[in-house]
């Protein structure tokens, strides 16, 4: 194996065993708002994957009234010119607007993947989804801001992602594939949808021609992350991936569509994760960190939770040292634009 492709891999944990920490994190995801002391007012857009079309009612009525083929063809011809994309809806379920679990998971996971620079033995993590490393994009090219922000971990190729479809026996995975899963391997960390709790939307017409139904600054979504078979340092990594450092409230991170654009009338995608509660499952090991101990079935909130976060993140830092980058995405982006 070429050294430039080296990813540190090991046997995944046995999924048929309950060992280590198991529990649930209750979280809020907040779009940043000056009103609550953030440095920026930010919108958020996470699409549903569906397009919403606008068709003039006049034409629909005409189509309904068409009696012969020629009339219908005339309406169709007119329609094709009159259909336009309406404001694209924000992702939703029957329970209202949601930031889907898959988006939150992808957000946390990719931040962690990108936060690992090469260590002595190689990269702690593969890239689960990545195109090959080509020439770094020049300023203004597609993806240039992303590249500049994460340059330190993007310079090198990491090879193919981990894969367990060939069977359990031969399967070896990186640290993050063990936590979040990969083909043939169920993750140990499960995300819920983050459901809108105090959410206002606004229909925006962007100068790019895009029309979006975006969530306004100061909106709050709530959700949870369930974990099992984690060591304290791995629980710490999960928090680190959400931008949590020394308290329950994370630093601003980027999420969703248009997060790198700073040439629009609105800022998009600057959010904070806020940890509200930690619960351990009855079948968990106790969580011991920095002189604190949470028993199985117990939990933590408020000030104790803040100390717990700080303790776990400290553990992460001492474990991974210089391999683990602490990139300030939002700051770096502003720096690029300046």
């Amino acid at each position, binding site marked *: 194996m070429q050294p430039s492709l080296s990813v540190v891999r090991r046997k995944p944990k046995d999924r*048929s065993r*309950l060992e280590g920490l198991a529990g649930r994190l209750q979280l809020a995801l907040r779009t940043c708002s000056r009103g609550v002391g953030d440095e920026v007012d930010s919108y958020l857009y996470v699409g549903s994957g569906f397009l919403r079309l606008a068709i003039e009612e006049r034409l629909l009525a005409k189509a309904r009234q068409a009696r012969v083929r020629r009339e219908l063809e005339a309406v169709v011809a007119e329609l094709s010119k009159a259909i336009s994309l309406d404001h694209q809806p924000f992702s939703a*379920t029957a329970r209202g607007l949601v930031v889907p679990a*898959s988006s939150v*998971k992808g957000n946390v996971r990719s931040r962690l993947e990108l936060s690992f620079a090469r260590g002595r033995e190689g990269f702690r993590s593969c*890239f689960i989804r990545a195109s090959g490393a080509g020439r770094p994009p020049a300023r203004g090219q597609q*993806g240039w801001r992303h590249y500049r922000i994460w340059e330190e971990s993007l310079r090198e190729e990491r090879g193919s992602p981990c894969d367990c479809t060939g069977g359990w026996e031969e399967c070896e995975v990186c640290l993050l594939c063990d936590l979040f899963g990969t083909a043939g391997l169920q993750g140990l960390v499960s995300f819920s949808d983050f459901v809108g709790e105090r959410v206002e939307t606004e229909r925006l017409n962007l100068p790019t021609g895009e029309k979006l139904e975006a969530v306004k600054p100061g909106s709050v979504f709530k959700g949870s992350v369930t974990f099992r078979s984690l060591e304290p340092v791995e629980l710490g990594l999960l928090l680190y991936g959400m931008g949590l450092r020394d308290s329950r409230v994370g630093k601003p991170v980027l999420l969703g569509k248009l997060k790198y654009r700073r040439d629009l009338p609105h800022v998009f995608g600057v959010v904070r994760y806020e940890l509200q509660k930690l619960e351990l499952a009855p*079948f968990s090991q106790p969580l011991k960190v920095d002189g604190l101990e949470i028993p199985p079935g117990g939990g933590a909130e408020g000030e104790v939770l803040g100390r717990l976060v700080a303790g776990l993140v400290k553990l992460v830092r001492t474990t991974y040292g210089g391999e683990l980058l602490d990139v300030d995405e939002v700051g770096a982006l502003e720096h690029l634009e300046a």
Partner: protein
Amino acid sequence: MSQPVPWSSHRLLLRLAVIEGWLVNETPLRVGTGREPPLGSAVDLAVIRIHLGGRSVPYIPGSSLKGVFRSTAIQLARAKGLTVCSGLSGDTCMDWESPKYGTSLLKFIQERQREGDEPGAFRVFHEDACLLCKMFGAPSFTGHVEFSDAYPLDEKGQLLEVPLGVRTGIAIDRRTGAVYRGALYQVEFVEPGARFKLTVRATNLPNYALGLLAKILKMLHEGWVRVGGFKTRGFGEVRVENLSFSVTGGTVSGTKLLAVDERDVEVDLAGLAQRYDGWLKASGDNAWRALSKLEEVWDRAALA
């Protein structure tokens, strides 16, 4: 109290326990028609449906519920120090080469059966197969727990509406920060709030084994265990509503569930369950309390 015929035998009905309720999904739910395709493949994943009352309706097959219970039971049993098999075909207690018999347990038992020694065959199975093979079944052996298909039915057996949604999945290319080409999937799901009728029937299970089922049911209810696909992406969290627990048979005496084997412990459901028509039945919160009494038996039982 030990039975002359082991409880794992089907020759004698020692007791029948029935757990009923509704599974209500708190989050999107997807029980699919087969294996999940590999990540990155552009496949439309439809939920599984069955023809019922002239309509095609989503449901949760009993086999998927049984799968969820067995895989959770493996974790709980191993955490307790029990040796249990994976239950996967070719990797059960029945398939393993037994040093005691010089052949697989399955072959040895089949040999006994061919010689007409049915009770002997059962004794060997009872002593050498793991608890989960006895509970959930093994090759050529029917288990003692049966999960019915869970249909969207109300209390009167009328079909309920099951609203469906479709979600599109994308992935972000780590290198470009843009949407990864080809990582798109569309998955159909049951919208949160649908209700599926749950029926679990268990025959002959000792109190500790009923307690294991009770524990898993509670884990399901509390969101530690999920149903169906896309579990790590928020799907499959269900609550159990309108729970009832009923039990009948020779090992039920008054409000007591007698011990079924020498490792079992008697449980008294006085104050939680009432008797009628030969059944001892608890409903609602009392059903949960009755189940947690059984769970305590599982927690305390020395089975390893």
